[in-house]
């Protein structure tokens, strides 16, 4: 039942309804629109990066957990298998995702910490099925140049599954670090039935110069996975903000460690040619996460998974019984045409220099060029100047564009000196090698706009409304085709 039951209104409410009763839509309008809608063809396959139906906004039942999406992205499972998995009973173990039979799985019985070289590495979590394993370490207490050291660990800290073999058998999955802790996650072969199971970092850099590095060797004890080890089912979709200028902010999932909460969020853009970057610094941070009392959960670390696909923030531990407000006040929206063939074929400006012309000569353009509706640029004219030879491209816009870049294609090469050109003042200046001849095309390469809607992008949420991710957010968050504009 979605409609108001008018029989339930009291007399004053009936008066309200009457007072606000606007005229109906005319019949010719509704019939015409209906005919137009009937002619809309079935929408094209929207399974671009993902190859299944897109997750939906929060208040629609998604039926697809982030875990499945992540599995698809990593392992490229086809749509039939995905839907088969959705229909079966799903249990999720941290790090390995869906498990059909817990009996084939095992987890770490107890975390193991080793302190040497002046810092501590802890084997915090491990899950394993008959197909694969996942392990998470944390590194704490390193006193030196953390950024450099963490980079070294990522590059050289190969995790050995079986230290008698030479080649490491682990696959580095991801990491995240805050001011004090580094988390490292790896994938391994199945280990539940491994004999003499050990994990070792053999090549971490030594903390002291001229010293041989220590070996970090862990002997994990494993136990059978229980229901208590599994993660709650996620049948919510993403949480979404309202749309502004075709951009929607979405919270995808949260991730928990003993000390921190990670929030995976992203900005859905109008098309794959768009990307966004957040404006503003860390204090005040953009976006900001505050609780109901206005306490700011400062970002300890923000990773741009990909400015096109998403961000990830690690913040202080967020309680489950608290409500939060995520707000992003502004951002820069970029539009790029990166396919140079399209860039040249769709170049909006073509100038033919075959006829004689002198300095000051103008080629009148006078047209609007639309790129990914509703954005438009008005190209006014091109003027040839000398001393040194160059072209001025005069343009205007119908929205707040920060800068535009054009790309020069010429059949007289090299004619243009340096590409692409950018401008934010309504006039491009394109340097020329000499007085031009032949033909020149100018393609629209990039546009950027700073967007600051009145209240920004906001989402109110609690952690329990979000999907819980099994591992650190992947760098490949699926792109969802936005609703098409007419």
């Amino acid at each position, binding site marked *: *039942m*979605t*409609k*108001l*039951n*008018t029989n339930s209104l009291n007399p*004053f*409410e009936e*008066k*309200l*309804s*009457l*007072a*606000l*009763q*606007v*005229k*109906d*839509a005319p019949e010719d*309008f*509704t019939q015409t*629109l*209906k005919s*137009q*809608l*009937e002619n*809309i063809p*079935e*929408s094209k396959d*929207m399974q671009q990066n993902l190859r299944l*139906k*897109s997750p*939906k*906004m*929060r*208040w*629609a*039942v998604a*039926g697809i957990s982030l875990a499945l999406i992540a599995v698809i992205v990593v392992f490229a499972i086809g749509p039939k298998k995905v839907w088969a998995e959705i229909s079966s009973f799903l249990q999720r173990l941290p790090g390995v995702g869906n498990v059909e039979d817990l009996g084939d799985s095992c987890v770490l019985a107890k975390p193991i910490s080793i302190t040497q070289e002046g810092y501590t590495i802890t084997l915090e979590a491990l899950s394993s099925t008959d197909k694969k394993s996942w392990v998470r370490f944390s590194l704490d207490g390193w006193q030196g140049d953390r950024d450099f050291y963490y980079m070294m660990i990522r590059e050289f800290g190969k995790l050995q599954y079986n230290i008698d073999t030479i080649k490491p058998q682990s696959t580095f999955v991801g990491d995240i670090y805050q001011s004090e802790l580094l988390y490292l996650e790896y994938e391994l072969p199945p280990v539940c039935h491994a004999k003499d199971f050990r994990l070792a970092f053999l090549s971490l850099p030594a903390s002291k110069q001229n010293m041989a590095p220590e070996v970090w060797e862990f002997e994990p004890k494993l136990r059978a996975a229980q229901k208590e080890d599994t993660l709650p089912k996620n049948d919510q979709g993403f949480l979404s903000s*309202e*749309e*502004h*200028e075709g951009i929607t902010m979405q919270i995808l999932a949260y991730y928990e460690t003993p000390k921190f909460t990670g929030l995976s969020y992203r900005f859905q853009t109008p098309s794959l040619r768009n990307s966004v970057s957040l404006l503003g610094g860390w204090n005040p941070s953009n976006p900001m996460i505050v609780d109901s009392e206005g306490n700011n959960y400062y970002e300890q670390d923000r990773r741009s998974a990909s400015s096109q696909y998403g961000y990830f923030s690690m913040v202080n531990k967020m309680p489950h019984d608290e409500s939060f407000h995520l707000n992003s006040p502004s951002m820069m929206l970029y539009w790029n045409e990166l396919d140079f063939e399209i860039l040249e074929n769709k170049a909006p400006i073509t100038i033919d220099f075959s006829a004689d012309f002198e300095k000051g000569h103008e080629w009148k353009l006078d047209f609007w060029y639309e790129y990914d509706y*509703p954005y438009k640029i008005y190209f006014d004219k091109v003027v040839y100047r000398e001393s040194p030879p160059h072209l001025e491209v005069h343009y205007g816009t*119908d*929205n*707040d564009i920060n800068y535009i870049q054009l790309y020069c294609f010429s059949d007289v090469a090299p004619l243009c000196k340096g590409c692409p050109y950018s401008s934010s003042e309504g006039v491009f200046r394109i340097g020329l090698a000499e007085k031009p001849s032949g033909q020149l095309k100018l393609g629209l390469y990039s546009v950027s706009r700073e967007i600051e*809607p009145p209240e920004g992008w906001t989402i*109110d949420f609690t952690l329990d409304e979000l999907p819980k991710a099994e591992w650190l957010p992947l760098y490949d968050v699926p792109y969802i085709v936005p*609703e*098409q*504009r*007419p």
Partner: protein
Amino acid sequence: MQKAKLNELYDEWIQAIYRYTLSRVKHVDDAQDITSQTFLSAWQNRERYQERGEFAAWLFSIARNKINDHFRQAQRKQKRIQTLGDDEIYKLSAEPQHETLIALRQVISTLSEKDQELIRLRYVAGLDFAAIAKISRRSPAACRKACSRLVAKLKAHFEQEQE
């Protein structure tokens, strides 16, 4: 989604979407334009929609975004939004009720935009609290309570004005 189902949904919601839009933009041409955009957008993306029971909330969310775009574009272009007179927007009522209803509309217009929106969704669009909750991302109980308080406040204010 099957065409027959789409037609059924269209017939069910076209007037509610139009009335809601008209009550906000107060211009017939703009309301028709935005209503068209709303349904076109929804139809082109119907594959993304699964749950019929929440279709209204989805549709109204699209409409709200289109309306917000409309106001934003006008603001960007520093265009003054043309609106029509009440006689061209609202249904006429017989006297003496007509004057009463005009007075009530004036009282409603003094509410905050958020409160006016709740009133519109409830009494213009004719949505129940479950649908309003989905659109406004609050619980149905919170929407019911807010609406009840608002109506009581309006009633008290209106009766005071009438004395």
